[in-house]
């Protein structure tokens, strides 16, 4: 009896540690990914402008933001391998259960996107002055294609966990099997998650570009290349922000259709309600019983969920009762609600931070509309300190998406506790958790310092490269 309890506790600890590790490594990896997705497009656009006009400022912008892009890209690459391996290491029963389906978009990502991205980024970095101008320009656009394709496939894989489609259960093999790859790749969640991820990433890249430009304009230096960078960055932030709102709306509707519990958890809406309001802020616990004060927008939750002002939104209690009746016996799960304080506040912080940055962009565009840079210092500081807000919003948004899926690993099919590796103990997971935390913390400091140094150094005058020179145009 005692030993069984001990084993169960150890299993539980291993499960918790495996979840912490997945959360830590994924959030960390995804600090670098959005800037990659967004900045690669901006760099490609700037280089295109340079190739078409031959103007020096565009070359300077391409090089400076290209450098920032690359320092960041390296971290995305090395932390990405961990992602690919840890499904098998920590979540082997999950891998067994969904490998027939989930493995396909992952392998497609590798064959179509990763190879592409890794090859063409190498050609772009080291191809300056070695490849013909237009061929070199093509390599950065190929990189854009690789990066974006990669995003699509991994989001399609993730969408299967949110909304499993295109499969059948093979009970003899205890696993789900693929029956329709088209359905997996056109999952309604993926179709909405992809534009949401990409536009939010573009918004982040725009905010970073704005901050870099603001740093130099505040000091009245490099104005020739930093003023266009500022305007470009602000417009990008605004356009990315608008895209994030529109795609977020689509994603919300898809979520209500596929995971109603998650939308109910976003508002902590206990009872099924028509004309449901949306609270911007609640003081007290958000369980509806001890609410002391809240600011509410009437009917907004109904509108977000159904696009009608009086639409009915299903509540947590009804859904929970329904799920317990439907899945309780088979899964042994007694409560199907996610952790509400996380989903409630994460949803608000995600939206709120995005709105703040969009406002900064609009005001910035207005203030600098006539090319004026004699602005009070604090306005520049606001532009600089807004840079991390979009990535914070993105991170929090993912926490909402993934924590809102709990207690499911694959919605309706597999509870999280059932996916962990049976043969892997606390020792292994704890060792790897500590190792990753330590190395990731050190790298974060180094990368951040290097990034800041590159930003502060600003655009540099290009030395003309002598085609006959034996020197490598670009080298480690």
């Amino acid at each position, binding site marked *: 009896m005692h030993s069984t309890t001990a084993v169960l506790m150890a299993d539980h600890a291993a499960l918790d540690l495996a979840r912490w590790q997945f959360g830590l490594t994924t959030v960390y990896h995804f600090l670098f990914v959005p800037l990659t997705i967004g900045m690669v497009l901006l760099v490609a656009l700037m280089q295109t402008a340079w190739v078409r006009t031959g103007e020096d400022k565009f070359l300077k912008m391409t090089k400076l933001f290209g*450098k920032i892009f*690359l*320092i960041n890209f390296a971290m995305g690459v*090395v932390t990405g*391998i*961990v992602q*690919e*391996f840890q*499904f098998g*290491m920590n979540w*082997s029963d999950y891998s*067994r259960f*969904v*490998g*027939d*389906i989930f*493995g*396909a978009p*992952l*392998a*497609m990502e*590798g*064959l179509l996107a*990763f*190879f592409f991205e*890794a*090859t063409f980024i*190498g*050609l772009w*970095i*080291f*191809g300056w002055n070695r*490849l013909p101008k237009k061929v070199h320009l093509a390599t950065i656009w190929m990189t854009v294609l690789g990066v974006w394709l990669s995003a699509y496939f991994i989001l399609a894989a993730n969408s299967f966990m949110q909304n499993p489609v295109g499969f059948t259960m*093979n009970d003899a*093999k*205890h696993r789900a*099997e*693929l029956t329709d*790859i088209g359905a997996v790749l056109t999952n309604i969640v993926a179709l909405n998650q992809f534009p949401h991820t990409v536009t939010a990433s573009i918004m982040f890249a725009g905010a970073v570009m704005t901050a870099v430009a603001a740093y130099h304009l505040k000091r009245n230096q490099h104005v020739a290349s930093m003023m266009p960078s500022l305007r470009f960055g602000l417009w990008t932030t605004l356009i990315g922000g608008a895209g994030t709102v529109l795609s977020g709306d689509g994603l919300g509707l898809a979520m209500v259709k596929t995971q109603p519990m998650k939308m109910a958890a976003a508002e902590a809406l206990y009872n099924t309600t028509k004309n449901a309001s949306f609270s911007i802020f609640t003081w007290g616990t958000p369980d509806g019983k001890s609410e002391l004060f809240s600011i509410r927008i009437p009917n907004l939750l109904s509108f977000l969920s159904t696009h009608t002002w009086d639409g009915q939104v299903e509540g947590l209690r009804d859904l929970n009762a329904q799920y317990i009746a439907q899945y309780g016996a088979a899964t042994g799960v007694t409560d199907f609600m996610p952790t509400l304080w996380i989903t409630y506040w994460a949803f608000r912080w995600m939206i709120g931070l995005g709105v703040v940055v969009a406002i900064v962009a609009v005001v910035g565009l207005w203030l600098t509309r006539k090319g004026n840079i004699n602005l009070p210092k604090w306005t520049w500081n606001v532009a600089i300190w807004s840079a991390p807000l979009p990535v914070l919003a993105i991170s929090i948004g993912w926490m909402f998406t993934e924590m809102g899926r709990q207690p499911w690993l694959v919605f309706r099919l597999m509870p999280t506790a059932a996916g962990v*590796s*049976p*043969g*892997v103990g606390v020792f*292994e997971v704890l*060792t790897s958790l500590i*190792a990753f935390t330590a*190395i990731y913390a050190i*790298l974060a400091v*180094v*990368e951040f310092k*290097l990034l800041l*140094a*590159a930003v502060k150094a600003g655009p540099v005058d290009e030395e003309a490269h002598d085609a006959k020179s*034996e*020197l*490598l*145009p*670009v*080298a*480690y």
Partner: protein
Amino acid sequence: MQLNELWFLIVGFLFIGYFVLDGFDFGVGMSLPFLGKDDIDRRVLINTIGPVWDLNETWVIVAGASLFAAFPEWYATLFSGFYLPLLIILLALIARGVAFEYRGKGHTIGANEKRWKSAFDWMIVIGSAVPALLWGVAFANIVQGVPLEKVGASTVFTGNLFTLLNPYGLLGGLVTLTLFWTHGLVFITLKTDGEIKERARKLATKVGLVTTVLAATFLVWTLFTHLSAPLFVLELGLTAVAALSLIAALWMNFKAREGAAFTLLVVTIITAVGALFAGLFPYVLPSTADTAASLTVDNARSSDYTLGVMTWVAAIMLPLVLAYQTWTYWVFRKRVSRKSIPANAH
């Protein structure tokens, strides 16, 4: 040929591609303290693989993902079972990748140049040698088999790290360590000019001889454990080609025929790893404990539908991948020498 057999071949192809390509990256990384007398030398070495190490490393990600898609049970059991060695490989690859990218940037943050570079150089050396050793340990153990048992519907590895560090596994690790090192040294002779090329050639001869002894022992040992394997004749043939091409490669290296030496080493790695896969078939992870728990191409496979879809993707993409990667190697074909290293890293 059944689809699962085809995918056994494709997975084998991807791992072989990884060992051929990242193999010489590891060899170059391990050579830093032996051939790099000063910073310029070391930069010459690093820049021989500068534009390509990332795409070479990508082969293992694609190999892993293909394993996941085509043989989920193999992927799940192997990756959870070989947990600690894989963790160490991951940490090493992280260290190596970051080091390439950041070693030349210390001056931008006012770090002590010498200490900064030396720290990252060691990350490159260790980040290259450790995976070169552990991939061999892992593959030798796959071929030899590990203790597995059925727990419910899952196949679970019941050993620990030390189960994997058996004599055969360790010998396999030493073979890949020395083979990749030789491969890297010959790659350096192919990609550099001047004194460093000569140093690499001489060292390649020495390391190559050690490799030959270790590899011969390992391959013969492997053959004797597979006398009744269904593809034994193929395994025997591939082993013979591997042995002959390794010896021929060393001879060509000695004769200063870099291109031929490198090509022969590529053949060596293809046939040697090919021999391991041939000996393994139809198993993908044999069990040394409960033989009923052994994983094979039949019980670890994905459904016909999934394998069919993935076959289309691989059939279209792999030729394309090979084409554009070959083009990259063509673009960066020039030799690197001390004269070609610019003052500042990018």
